[in-house]
């Protein structure tokens, strides 16, 4: 395959950290309602969005993920009362840090998806994939050794 063609058909790898109670269930609902979204998205189940350490996200980017999504319950609806508030503060900071490092901030996204929002889950994953496909591969943080 010629090199330029390979670039054109770039398919991003996206990791989505989903909280067990809302967003993972929202993903399940997207499945049971037979919605479709790109297969680029790989979900990691965590108990709460506050369980997602910035380390995991940086690791994902270093290992070559092109985009990372953290999805949790809507503010106020956290299964653990306040976890998503901590996540929100932490990730605002991380987003600015990634921007400071020179990475496109769109590569890291935080979304609130409830257990009843299968359509939103599918929409978020589709939009994110489209956005990151347009951005091209993550070169900035990728471990190039």
């Amino acid at each position, binding site marked *: 395959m010629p090199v330029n063609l390979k670039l054109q058909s770039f398919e991003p790898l996206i990791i989505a950290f989903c909280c067990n109670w809302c967003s993972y269930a929202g993903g399940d609902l997207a*499945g049971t309602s037979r919605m479709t979204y790109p297969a680029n998205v790989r979900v990691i189940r965590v*108990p709460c969005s506050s369980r997602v350490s910035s380390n995991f996200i940086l690791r994902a980017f270093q290992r070559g993920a092109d985009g990372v999504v953290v999805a949790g319950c809507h503010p106020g609806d956290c299964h653990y009362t306040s976890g998503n508030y901590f996540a929100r503060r932490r990730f605002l900071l991380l987003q600015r840090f990634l921007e400071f490092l020179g990475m496109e901030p769109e590569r890291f996204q935080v979304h609130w998806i409830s257990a009843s929002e299968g359509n939103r889950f599918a929409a978020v994953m589709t939009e994110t994939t489209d956005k990151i496909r347009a951005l091209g591969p993550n070169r900035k943080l990728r471990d190039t050794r």
Partner: protein
Amino acid sequence: MRRIGVFICWCGTNIANTVNIEGVTEAAGKMPSVIYADNYKYMCSEIGQSMIKEAIIKEKLDRVVVAACSPRMHELTFFKTAAAAGLNPYLVEIANIREHCSWVHKDKQEATGKAIALIRTAVAKAARNKELWATQIPVECRALVIGGGIGGIQAALDIADAGFEVDLVERTPSIGGRMAQLDKTFPTLDCSACILTPKMVEVASHHNITLYTFSEVEKVDGFVGNFEATIRKKARSIDLEKCTGCGICWEKCPSRVKSEFDEALVMRKAVYVPFPQAVPNVPVIDRASCRRFTREKCGICRKACPAGAVNYDQEDEVLQKKYGAIVVATGFDILDLDDFGEFSYGKHPDVLTSLEFERLVNSSGPTGGRLLRPSDQSPPKNVVFIQCVGSRDKSRGKPYCSKICCMYSAKHAILLREKYPEAQAYVFYIDIRTAGKDFEEFHRRAVEEYGALYLKGSVGKVFPDGDKLLVKGVDSLSGHAVEIEADMVVLAAAIKAKSDAPQLARLLGISTDTHSFFTEAHPKLRPVEAHTAGIFLAGACQGPKDIPETVSQASGAAAKAIILLSKDNLLSNPCVSEVNESLCTGCLSCIKVCPYGAVAEKTIEEKIHGKALKRRVAEVNEALCQGCGSCTVSCRPGAVNLKGFTNEQIMAEVDAICL
């Protein structure tokens, strides 16, 4: 080197249609540490499960990965399978290749690739799984029921009859709820009060039930088996013990306000019982409209009361109580019709909602059961019923079907004819939905025996014409415009969730759907449980429902609560946080983020170079920890880890995905 077994489920055709099972099995067999890979049509079936058990024993597997449906669906099933073969259940990982793969992707090659990646991820995590053991936590053998309508009443009675103590909390001055407002019930035309009031009295007299009316739940802490609720008993201003319910106080009271129970069709006094059969039959003083409280004048009721029960200085009482289970049965509201100006609701007194109509035909209602027009107190001849006002209406109302309107409108048409044999009922409808035992027959009776005229179509406008109402609509079956001179128009307004349902959901830590109805744990298999363990749902707070459905759901919720309360101990979730004391620096930032107060500080003694030193570290109370993992992220030295979702496991998952 681990000995991991991978079991891939076809799920009939659900997975096998979009994922190349053979290819995936082959790829899984080559993954690191995987020594066994197999597939079967239905892994969750008995044959599938025994396949797993046999392989665990024969191949001496020490980790198991099941690639099947969502772990939210069958994780427990496969945990039990592993345990039956002598493997610690927490050594099992699920790769979700159905909901997150085969069902959402169309392309077979893509889906197969993703399935392999998901299995690789689960294998990587499983390799780092450790044996975990659940601990026992004691259960508080009391139940709290929130809401005193028919749902709450039924649930409270069932739990109490099983021998457990129940506290029933109702916000209004009396239990009874919506059902108390109704006259007759479909499809049998039973008198609503006749079947409800005996139950209300039973609740009040049951030795296991404590009734808190005019009270609200303010706060709920804790977790399954060990909830702690704060209940505010609002000041009734009447002594419950002394009052005899004689009624002199409300006869003498000079203040009048619109009656909530009678849908604002008549006035009530400031000291009142909502309806004659109220339980408890003790009035309350509505402080917002009582002259004693608004203007510091008056005091007539205190002077008049022969029992000396009126007490203006009574204060709110706040109670702290412990419960093992909670049943939520808070009911529904009627959609606000402000956006439906074309029906002249609120502008003309003879345009009513169905609930107002219900009060007008009720013998304890404002007209004593004589159905009269509110405008001139004359009997109506032509009554137009309009269905789906706000139901199945995405733009102005709710997209869902309110479920009960078709049936109660048929009932209203029958009641109208029974009261006035010459009267004519017209029903404008979109579709008639009569799915239920004897429902269709009941609807046919309204049409055939009681001559109700059903018109398929919508109403464009209702406007006053002299002392009548002119209803302009379309009969879409004949294709003609229809004009009816009506004496009364009844709107089947949509059912909606209680306006404060989201606040209650927050308070309890349960979830709501997009319309603020409480969501059940599984729409088919766990319809009476909330997502939060130990909280159960009954009645229309979970979605529109009629009385029989509410009662059966309430009994279902009660049964689930009884199962919980009848256990002396519960097995705790072992996926909780733990502190590595040798790494902990004692900064205690974990304490600040813990929503359950499960982390505390403790002092340990260490010997360093022969010297005994005291050092501050964090300690996790495993009974309180719910396993959110917030503390693990806040920990700077990385001393806190969450069992089952350790840093190492999640990192391994990330690495496996990015391979």
